[in-house]
């Protein structure tokens, strides 16, 4: 049976391979950028409101901070209770051009010992989890210089 690939949230990211990007929106009146995307009203209180246009966010940023979860998160996070819990890194990344900090999971195998505040990382496509019919896709952060030993 073939599995369909479905983004965990529609419209937050897209593109294949090196073209993969987080997708936000930009207000055509005040140039404010939003992620997660705003599609109806600009949230800048000094802006009368312009058209909100989809915009890809910078591919690379620097680690603002990082942590992990040593215990299995509750639902609606999907895990297999039959398998032992494997912690993953959670990384908050500052994108210089957008002046925004975006949270994401680290790529599989990356641990907090591999990370440092200020390290450069890039956004890559990843798999959140799979079930019988669907591969649920997401974004992940990966160090650009390879993982420290």
């Amino acid at each position: 049976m073939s599995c369909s690939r479905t983004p965990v949230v529609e419209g937050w990211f897209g593109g294949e391979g090196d073209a993969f990007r987080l997708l936000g929106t930009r207000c055509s009146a005040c140039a404010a950028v939003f992620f997660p995307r705003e599609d109806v009203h600009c949230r800048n209180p000094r802006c009368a409101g312009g058209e909100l246009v989809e915009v890809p966010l910078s591919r690379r940023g620097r680690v603002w901070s990082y942590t992990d979860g040593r215990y299995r998160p509750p639902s609606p996070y999907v895990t297999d209770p039959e398998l032992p819990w494997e912690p993953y890194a959670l990384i908050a990344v500052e994108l210089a051009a957008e002046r925004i900090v975006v949270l994401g999971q680290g790529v599989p195998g990356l641990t907090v010992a591999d990370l440092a505040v200020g390290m450069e990382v890039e956004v890559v496509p990843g798999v959140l989890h799979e079930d019988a019919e669907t591969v649920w896709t997401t974004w992940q952060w990966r160090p650009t210089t390879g993982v420290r030993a």
Partner: protein
Amino acid sequence: MDDLAVAADNGGEGMTDEVAVLGAGMHPWGKWGRSFVEYGATAARAALADAGLEWREVGSIVGADTVRGGYPGYVAGATFAKALGWQGARVTSVYAACASGAQAVNAARAQILSGLADVALVVGADAAPKGFFRPAGGDRPDDPDWLRFRVLGATNPTYFGLYARRRMAVHGDTVEDFAQVKVKNSAMGALNPYARYRKRVTGDEVAASAVVAEPLRLLDICATSDGGAALVLSSMEFARRHGAAEPVRIRAVSTVTPHYPNTVLDLPDIATDSAVAVEPAARTFRESIAGAAYEEAGIGPEDLSLAEVYDLSTALELQWYEDLGLCGAGEGAKLLREGATALGGRIPVNPSGGLASFGEAVPAQAIAQVCELTWQLRGTAGDRQVAGARVGITANQGLFGHGSAVVAVR
């Protein structure tokens, strides 16, 4: 547009009237396994007895809601009124996550100051589940709180871990500094009969506890608890007629929201606001919470005798020192190391024992902070008394941008 922004910054100019705290009461924190209604009603009766008032003399009841109590929790004001015995009081129910209790205090205060009520009873109580807080059920991709669990598995402690690691990188804080916050708070909590954890904890015990969200360990992170707290508030005129010559007074209640762009990653958000179109305000959101309270009360951090802050994690307590202006940016750990925030120090913080000793009973917690100020300012806090306490502040932040701080004086 700019004039409007300035007016909003002032948050209600000239608002200097005070209300009296006639009574404070609590149900001990713990994991009792009973209904939140019982905890709230017990606290309410204790506060009424402390005030020397009968429930039927109270004209208004304000309940801080709990989302964990089912429908009765969402309408907590009426639920507590029924438990105490229907007597026709005006009812209000408020929800603002961790800041619910301060919103309830503010709603009661507004009714008293506007003349809608002479006496108001404020009650909050919770019965917390074991383990992580989790969002309401269902498939709800329009709810940021649901999304952060679904997409990232980001529990509350992971946000605390991010803040703690950031402090280590920017300010040079160490995990030993964080542990010393727990050591300090547990020493004070050991003296509080309402606290859930009444055993002193050592730095070694913190270091030996399991990592929950790196770099934070189990004893760095507050538990979830059952508990209830209540206050009886009145007009100053009613307090005088009632024979309370020198009551503790609430001088300010800050209930501010952030200014766009909010550039500190806050629960439950997946990203900050972008600062590309608008420069961030000079004060961060948390700094503005205390700032608004100071401005309304006409005091500054140098006037404080004590502070009760929301130590969801040990590292977050150090952040509050800076956001309250008790020390400069990055100097929180130094203030702790000097002993300034311990009992007997220059500015004791969390003499109640804080969330470290209580665990969080969400809608009760901000009310419990004001109970502690009340007892400290009366000089009836027993072995944990801050000598000569005259001015106290509470500080707290509720999910989704609910700031809260209360200034009380005597």
